[in-house]
């Protein structure tokens, strides 16, 4: 008797006989992948943006339960406000349960702190695009590295001050410009100044304004892959922006040691979902959606950048003297048109143009 064409999946819990006739073992490939992933380790780059004093560094430390941000790393913290927006990034190797991760926290001191804040997002945009550019250059290199170091910004956490009214023009401008190039996760900082009702109405207002301005924050509706994803992400979208409280001090509450803020009228527990939404943010960023965030950065934001760059360099190239004397005269400024020469020429042209600009 010959075998059926496709083996059926094993009934759950059944032990396979010694000479099993219908089990090839391809699910072991998952195990192979996981071993490889564990060996290689992961990378995650997160950027924090917001005015000074909103608790950005504290929140990062709380998220990763260690002193990962700039403030904790510098020996003497100067409280000066820089004249322009600076970009400072700090990297750490963290490990948990055998999984290694290189975590990079990128801080932006000076954002929104000046008197005139026009274009203060530009250094940030430039930084993000520079990371894409360096990845692109690595990718088109002739001799590429086996694993290109990923310094692209995967996620940008934007801190909204808890005014309780609405988004400020600066917030709207920043998010509008940057939601197209990076995943933005807005959070309401220092949310312990808002009561629950104020918090809900503030959130609603913010969501309205985001929608009105066409700002798409993470998780973006258009990138939901299937119904299951959409269900999960809809729940998250209803809670955006998360109202968070950060803390690096531990207190004893009900016999347990927890992170919190102690005041005369009570103790705010950071990880208590009745008090603030820090736990939701942590779950989103780390436990469930980290890979998804990275994927969207790699496959959508980075690809958008790449396509734009390739088109730009195509325009550059086609305005040079043509390399093929037999090419028909073509009108200037048509970047999408492929010349009569086959694609390999275009690819080579890309490589030349892009690497000459290095």
């Amino acid at each position, binding site marked *: 008797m010959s075998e059926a064409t496709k083996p059926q999946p094993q009934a759950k819990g059944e032990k396979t006989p010694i000479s099993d*006739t219908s089990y090839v073992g391809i*699910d072991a490939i998952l195990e192979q992948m996981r071993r490889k992933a564990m060996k290689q380790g992961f990378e995650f780059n997160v950027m924090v943006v917001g005015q000074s004093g909103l608790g950005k560094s504290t929140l990062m430390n709380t998220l990763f339960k*260690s002193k990962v941000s700039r403030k904790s790393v510098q020996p003497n913290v100067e409280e000066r406000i820089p004249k322009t927006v600076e970009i400072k990034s700090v990297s750490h190797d963290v490990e948990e349960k055998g999984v290694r991760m290189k975590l990079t926290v990128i801080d932006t001191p000076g954002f929104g702190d000046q008197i005139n804040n026009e274009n203060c997002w530009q250094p940030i945009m430039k930084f993000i695009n520079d990371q894409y550019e360096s990845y692109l250059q690595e990718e088109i290199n002739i001799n590429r590295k086996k694993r290109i170091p990923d310094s692209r910004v995967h996620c940008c956490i934007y801190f909204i001050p808890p005014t309780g009214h609405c988004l400020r023009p600066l917030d709207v401008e920043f998010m509008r410009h940057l939601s197209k190039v990076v995943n933005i996760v807005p959070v309401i900082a220092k949310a312990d100044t808002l009561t629950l009702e104020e918090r809900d109405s503030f959130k609603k207002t913010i969501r309205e304004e985001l929608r009105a301005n066409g700002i798409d924050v993470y998780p973006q509706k258009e990138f939901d892959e299937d119904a299951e994803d959409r269900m999960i992400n809809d729940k998250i979208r209803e809670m955006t922006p998360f109202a968070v409280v950060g803390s690096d001090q531990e207190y004893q509450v009900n016999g347990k040691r927890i992170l919190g803020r102690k005041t005369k009228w009570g103790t705010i527990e950071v990880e208590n979902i009745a008090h603030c939404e820090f736990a939701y943010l942590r779950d989103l960023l780390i436990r469930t959606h980290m890979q998804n965030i990275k994927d969207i950065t790699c496959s959508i934001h980075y690809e958008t950048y790449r396509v734009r760059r390739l088109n730009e360099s195509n325009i550059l190239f086609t305005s040079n003297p043509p390399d093929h004397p037999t090419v028909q005269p073509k009108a200037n400024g048509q970047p999408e048109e492929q010349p009569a020469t086959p694609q390999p*020429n275009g*690819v080579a042209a890309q490589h030349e143009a892009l690497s000459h600009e290095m």
Partner: protein
Amino acid sequence: MQYPYAMRDLPLMSHSGEQHQRPGHYGAEGIGSPINGRHLSLPGTPSLVRTIPFHPRGSPAVPPRHNHMGLDPEFQQLPLRRQIVSQVSLDSPLSPSMRPRSPWGRFDPYDSPEDQDKEYVGFATLPNQVHRKTVKKGFTFTLIVAGESGLGKSTLINSLFLTDLYKDRKVLNAEERISRTVAIIKHTVGIEEKGVKLRLTIIDTPGFGDAVNNTESWRHIDDYIDQQFEQYFRDESGLNRRNIQDNRVHCCLYFISPFGHGLRPLDVDCMRALHEKVNIIPVLAKADSLTPAEVCRKKMKIREEIKQFGINIYQFPECDSDEDEDFKTQEQILKNSIPFAVIGSNVQVESKGRKFRGRVYPWGVVEVENPAHSDFLLLRNMLVRTHMQDLKDVTREIHYENYRAQCIQNMTRMVVLERKRSLREKYRDGSEADFPLPLAVADTEKERLIYEKDEELRKMQEVLERIQEQMQHSHRGGC
């Protein structure tokens, strides 16, 4: 009660050599080891971060560690548990009060009871998150079989993957075969097991080695492999990279006839032509025509000849020092079994109350899956259960990269030559009437500079080629 500052103080990441990383912009550092290096070395992590070899209870251990076919007795508990956990996760996708839990319950790293009370950040669920995406997408694997007719290639493929790809095959007789050239036939089959989808493509090469004059009968195979690389290269360099199909050939099973004395000239030439482009796994076909001693002798002879002729067959990756002994001995057994002596069968026989695939002879029954009878199990485990990912990695990182580097060099050289030629003409003639397009800036000085730069480029290209040759040379010697 107030507790003092209790934050973990992480050591800063340091380069090998650098002591203290100032909190400036962290420069990217790459894996500097040459492409030949098979070690997946970590990007410069210091020994401060210690790897804990991770052996959770109930994990689907890689089968060779325990037994070939069966699974861990604990493994059967996992599928049941999976259902329950995934239910919970779907209802409350964000369950912050509970300990970290992977979203769909597969292989939870935080499950052991001693972890219940500890505080975790939670990113050890990352490998599971990665898996989820790939499980949804499914895997692909492409395999090419090469060898003369009648060596049992089709039977072996059917046995390996438990498929029936060759149901309606018509075997040609000698006359019909005379005028045939080597054809390339692709069979694709989808296999699903335990929720994992694999799209398997088998490329058959009927007619290989059949003709009277077999010179360059591997040409078609060579071209096919190159075509796949080229297609992938174009897709990768194109503008829309969303759904690239990976048709690159990951592995070539080369069938060696058991009736000769080791490798024949056709075998040597074909393998030499293909060894830089694809992972070659030599297989000793129809091993049931040999006694164990003969098998051993033949294997040794073939191994010697492979070394003698400088054929780079697929090398198993080196074991890490922290792998357990079991794993290492398994790898050693694999290495000593090349070429795999295999027997295939599509027929189920019954003997001594058991049913199995085998071949019935008057003098006994050969069992396909009996490790004492053949290396079939070794081959299947290696191909599917333990080394599939590595085969794909080597194809992607070494063979494809070599192809790509060569391709780019050839193309840029062509482009540069063309441009230089046209420039040289113009420069010499001094007339501008040839160009259909008016130049942006009619500047002879600039053009002369361009011309000189192109000369420099050409010299750099030559240097690059020389380096490329050296790299390939060392790659050939090392791999």
